[in-house]
């Protein structure tokens, strides 16, 4: 999926004084975390040609929107701005930082653009208004149509500078979109842009899962009658059938090297968990139980598998080792807990549980300690999927009478509903990709 990047990135020129003397990052997962207040005035036209008013506004708006989506920034309203835009510039010497700190904006982003020939050059600078210092700056050259990519790249720089880790701007969500009695697999960018239809089988197609490198998506489809399992290569546009036993063929997890998958098969009468080695095709059975055993997912290090079983009466989450041994029950509260999803750092497992008759999203320590309810609204939540940086969870929830894909920060705040797609009545089963190196 790596797109050939046709524009050049130049690390500048701007040096961050505080970076050189060891940075103190802000812990955005701390309960006490307050969103970074940031002001983003219109970008300056640094070139000689005029008539680019729109672009000035576009950059400021696009960057505001992008940062807002992360859930870590409070964008200061333009109405509060004190600075005289005509007399100020975009470098440290040309900015009166008290204009910004006095309106509560701890951070300021300034930028400017110019054309050289057909290339667009854009500078971005992030300032600390309290210290009156530049934190980081970048200049990008590219085709005018690559301007959004430039914004996303700088947004990533901002997160890196303030938190020590970049964002998930180069990730996508795959999900099921249903209309009537047919459903297909779709993908959409992290920010809700560019929805894409991945399957067109005019059948029931379910349960998308990204391969670790994002080049493939697996799913189960009834297109030939039986719920069989397929893998589609997104670059070569080729689909192969990988499991077609009579009964259920469900793929719910890929190993981190992409060589093995976890399947649920019901060919022997019970739903049991198997490892399938993709190259050799070898099947390795992990559970032999008369109960329902479904939804297996490997821990990020591959040493453990979380799964759902009703062996103790109702669906609960269990953990076993990767050979299927040492099974222990993880969830004890509530009569229905399912859809385990391991956090990328391996410390927590998100799941859905029934709470007062509704399903909501929870997470629990991988040892079973400290269960936390993350969603509370009437629309409920099902099928959680972590972002690759562990900062967000996607899930499905009923909004305005319809099931939609939603995203929250992993602390449960900053709910965002992904945009709908025309003609599709219901969205569910989101799966978050890894980093796709899109930019």
């Amino acid at each position, binding site marked *: 999926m790596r797109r050939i990047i046709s524009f050049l990135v130049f690390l500048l020129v701007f040096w961050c004084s505080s970076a050189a003397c060891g940075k103190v990052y802000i812990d955005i997962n701390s309960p006490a975390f307050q969103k970074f207040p940031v002001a983003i005035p219109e970008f300056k036209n640094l070139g000689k040609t005029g008539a680019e008013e729109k672009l000035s506004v576009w950059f400021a708006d696009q960057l505001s929107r992008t940062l807002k989506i992360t859930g870590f920034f409070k964008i200061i309203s333009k109405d509060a701005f004190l600075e005289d835009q005509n007399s100020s510039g975009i470098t440290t010497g040309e900015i009166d930082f008290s204009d910004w700190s006095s309106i509560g904006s701890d951070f300021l982003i300034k930028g400017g653009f110019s054309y050289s020939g057909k290339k667009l050059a854009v500078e971005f600078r992030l300032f600390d208004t309290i210290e009156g210092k530049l934190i980081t700056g970048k200049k990008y050259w590219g085709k005018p149509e690559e301007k959004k990519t430039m914004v996303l790249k700088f947004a990533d720089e901002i997160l890196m500078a303030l938190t020590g880790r970049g964002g998930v701007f180069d990730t996508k969500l795959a999900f099921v979109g249903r209309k009537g009695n047919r459903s297909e697999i779709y993908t959409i960018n992290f920010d809700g842009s560019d929805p894409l239809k991945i399957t067109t089988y005019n059948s*029931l197609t379910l349960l998308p899962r990204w391969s670790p490198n994002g080049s493939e998506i697996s799913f189960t489809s009834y297109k030939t009658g039986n*719920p069989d399992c397929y893998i589609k290569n997104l670059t070569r546009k080729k689909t192969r059938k990988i499991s077609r036993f009579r009964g*259920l063929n469900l793929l719910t997890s890929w190993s981190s090297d992409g060589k093995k998958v976890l399947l*649920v098969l019901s060919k022997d009468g019970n739903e049991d968990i198997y490892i399938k080695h993709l190259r050799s095709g070898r099947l390795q059975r992990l559970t032999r139980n008369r109960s*329902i055993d*479904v*939804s297996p997912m490997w821990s990020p290090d591959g040493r453990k598998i979380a799964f759902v079983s009703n062996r103790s009466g109702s669906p609960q989450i269990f953990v076993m080792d990767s050979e299927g041994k040492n099974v222990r029950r993880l969830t004890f509260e509530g009569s*229905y807990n399912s859809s385990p999803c391991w956090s990328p750092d391996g410390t927590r497992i998100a799941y*859905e549980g029934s709470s007062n008759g509704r399903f909501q999203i929870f997470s629990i320590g991988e040892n079973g300690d400290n269960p936390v309810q993350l969603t509370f609204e009437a629309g409920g939540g099902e099928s959680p999927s972590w972002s690759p940086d562990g900062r967000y969870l996607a899930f499905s929830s009923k909004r305005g009478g319809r099931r939609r894909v939603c995203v929250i920060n992993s602390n449960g705040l900053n709910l965002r509903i992904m945009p709908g797609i025309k003609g599709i009545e219901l969205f569910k089963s989101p799966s978050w990709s890894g980093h796709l190196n899109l930019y």
Partner: protein
Amino acid sequence: MRRNLITGVLVLVCSFSLIFVAGCAKEQTVKSDAELTQAQQSAEEAAALKEQALKEQALKEQLLAEAAAFQDIPFDFDNYDLKPESRELLEKLADWLLEHGDFEATIEGHCDNRGTAVYNLALGERRAGAAKAYLVNLGVTGAKITTISYGEELPEDPRDCEEAWAKNRRDHFIVFPKKQ
């Protein structure tokens, strides 16, 4: 004169064809009233055949109507135990399948949309399997019954309320003539 000749030829041709048609008949001489009887008989036979076909068609339609009339059986939430009234219905279905050996059945297991899509696929599988096991216990050949789970994907009633959920937690039966 010429008209008489044509009539004569026609009569001759007709007689020959009648002899040819009745070639297997024992009587060597063909009388005209016998011819009439024979024609009448074949008309009656055709009518009888037609009637037979109609009857068969009606019977087939009746069977298909009977086959299509087996109602869905309901289930409780997160449960695949057969209810007593479902057992009665399955007994009727078993009798019917045993009586009509040239019919087969597909059992679809369905769930309401609460809980996990994946878990519901398994639950639907169990619901279909429970009905199949019951039919097999009653003597129906297992090979005549296929099961498939649609989980929560094909609700009968798409609303989110107890009434709709109850309708959606079901086994649906498709009974059809054995494919030749």
